[in-house]
């Protein structure tokens, strides 16, 4: 039997942007979004897929989405990996260097909830433990199409396909 375990709420010290602010961000970034990617302990599978977003098959530039080298120009932080101890500080510094308003996306099973690494002596096991996460893109690794959907979802340009209510419904069905 499959059980769904919902993710922990992020630490209370971390504030999430309000719905109104989020709508404003989505409006502002609608047609031009710059992404800074940070690898916080991935297996390189996620990077391989993210890199293909700019290849001819996907060409994410068509959607007005670009990768930037510096966090100072970035609107969105795309994080992969199980958040290793050594990457906590560089990750937080990258986030701090970004101008507000800023979005954070947890990419891949590792960043969402630790994947097979989970919370261990060397990994925090979820991005939400240290940063406020706007969108989770599951998958191991998420395919380029899943990544594009997740990014458009973050920008309010695509619909959420799976809802918490659906999970609750399944849980009810089991009971």
């Amino acid at each position, binding site marked *: 039997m499959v059980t769904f375990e919902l993710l922990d709420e992020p630490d209370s010290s971390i504030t999430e942007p309000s719905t109104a602010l989020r709508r404003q961000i989505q409006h502002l970034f609608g047609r031009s979004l710059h992404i800074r990617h940070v690898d916080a302990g991935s*297996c390189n599978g996620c990077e391989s897929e993210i890199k293909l977003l700019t290849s001819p098959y996907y060409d994410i530039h068509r959607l007005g989405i670009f990768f930037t080298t510096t966090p100072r120009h970035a609107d969105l932080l795309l994080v992969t990996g199980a958040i290793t101890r050594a990457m906590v500080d560089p990750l937080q510094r990258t986030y701090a260097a970004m101008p507000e308003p800023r979005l954070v996306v947890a990419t891949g099973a590792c960043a969402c909830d630790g994947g097979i690494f989970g919370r261990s002596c060397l990994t925090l096991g979820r991005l939400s433990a240290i940063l406020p996460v706007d969108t989770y893109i599951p998958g191991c690794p998420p395919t380029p199409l899943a990544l594009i959907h997740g990014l458009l979802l973050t920008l309010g340009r695509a619909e959420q396909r799976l809802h918490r209510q659906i999970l609750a419904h399944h849980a009810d069905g089991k009971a």
Partner: protein
Amino acid sequence: MSILDWARQVRLLHPNEWEVVLTPANLTTTVEALCANPRNHFTDMFGVEMGGERQLRLLFALDSEHGWLHLVVPVTGDSPHYTSLVEVCPATLWYEREVAEECGIIPSGHPGPLHLRLPDDWPEGVYPHGGGFSWQDKIPAVAPHPVELASAPDGIVDYPLGPVRSGVVESGHYLLRTAGEELVDMRLQLFYKHRGIEKRAEGCSLLHLPLIAERISGTSAFAHSLALCEAVERAAGIEAPPRARYLRTLFAELERLYNHHGYQADLCQATGLVVGQAQFDVLKERLLRLNARLAGHRYLFGLNVPGGLSRDLTDTERQVIDEELRFQRRTFTVLEELLFRSNSHIDRLERTGTLPPELALAWGAVGPVGRAAGVDRDLRRDHPYAAYAELDFAVPLETDGDALARARLRLEEVRQSFRLIDQILGSLPSSAVRVPPEACMVRPGVSALGWVESPRGEGVHWLSFGEQRQARRYRVRTGSFANWQTFPAAVPGHNILTDFPVIEQSFGLSFAGADR
């Protein structure tokens, strides 16, 4: 002790796998004797703790016997010591540090610091492979040890890069030392991504181990799960069915192909050849889609299982591969010719980032990096696994050791992979693709080795089982780990700062694989 003396005490563990037990006192002479033969290669060194006893273990590849030799050195006491081997075998440098840090076995006379892989806030004296705690235990952070930054001499500028660097890349830190334009030296700080994979595997069942192996380096997932499954099968004393061995070879070569295409794309990106990058990315993407169609996963996760493969190949799928390969071959031939006519690309590679062949050999460079610098080794030929012994292929070799040699070598390897896949499709045996799970049973307490020539060099996995048939110690030495050790040697001399991205890409190493 002479070679003859200890040769009498050598014990055969599995076919082509021998073990000899030594004392710390006669370790140095043994290693020296082994290194005197140019066909013996130091491969790995790690510490093991079992039931309160610690062992230092070294692994040598004996190429002329097509075999492997374990040197086992039981150690005792609170802080066991042995004489550092760096002088007789320079390639042991990082390995000694790892053993000291993670198992508490100290090399006396080791040049330089012993810290290597654990994060800065890790408390001293807590050894991940020294027993006493599990991977899930929380190890509290301590104040990080102060890092002393030597200031650069006059006229020299230090250029720190990373761990968060430009572009979509893995995390790692370089300190580039420049005099004007010229690169004079570099320091490497890896292991930001250390996830403790070996620790994570402790206590895992046969069912879970392949999942872990696949995530060592996602772009070599099939290679690593293959090495792991071969280790399990050797421990269980079985062999995968013939069809599974052929199909494993097929998927291993498909993985090599998409990696080598991705490598050329990244190299084109480094030299600013946008069209080349796009074209090689197209080839890579098509192979990933082929993988998804054949295995249900673009990176072949979930395909290898102990005892064979989780799914078979249908005849239609065989034709699909055949058609895609025809397209790949055609396009690749055109692209290769175009690459060599692009002077802007070739000029940036020629005599850039040269790894001198004598250093490559002494420091244990493996895989394409080694073969581009004259190290004529390939596990597929020298220690055949899966179905390689039954197939015909050449091992390309270059001797210049520069970025161009590394790029050319991978282009040639692509052609060899095409050849291998053609042969496999034409001679696929019919049999089951998996032995029944109950036949793949390991005896408690047994250990075995698995190896593979991954796209980035040789991966060697050692697995030892506990009383409940769970993994007691899982050790992984990836090709990237071995090659990173040689990387700084290629940087000084005739290279300028803007060559650095080219040098980095031309090695094509994985951080995840090295950090584990």
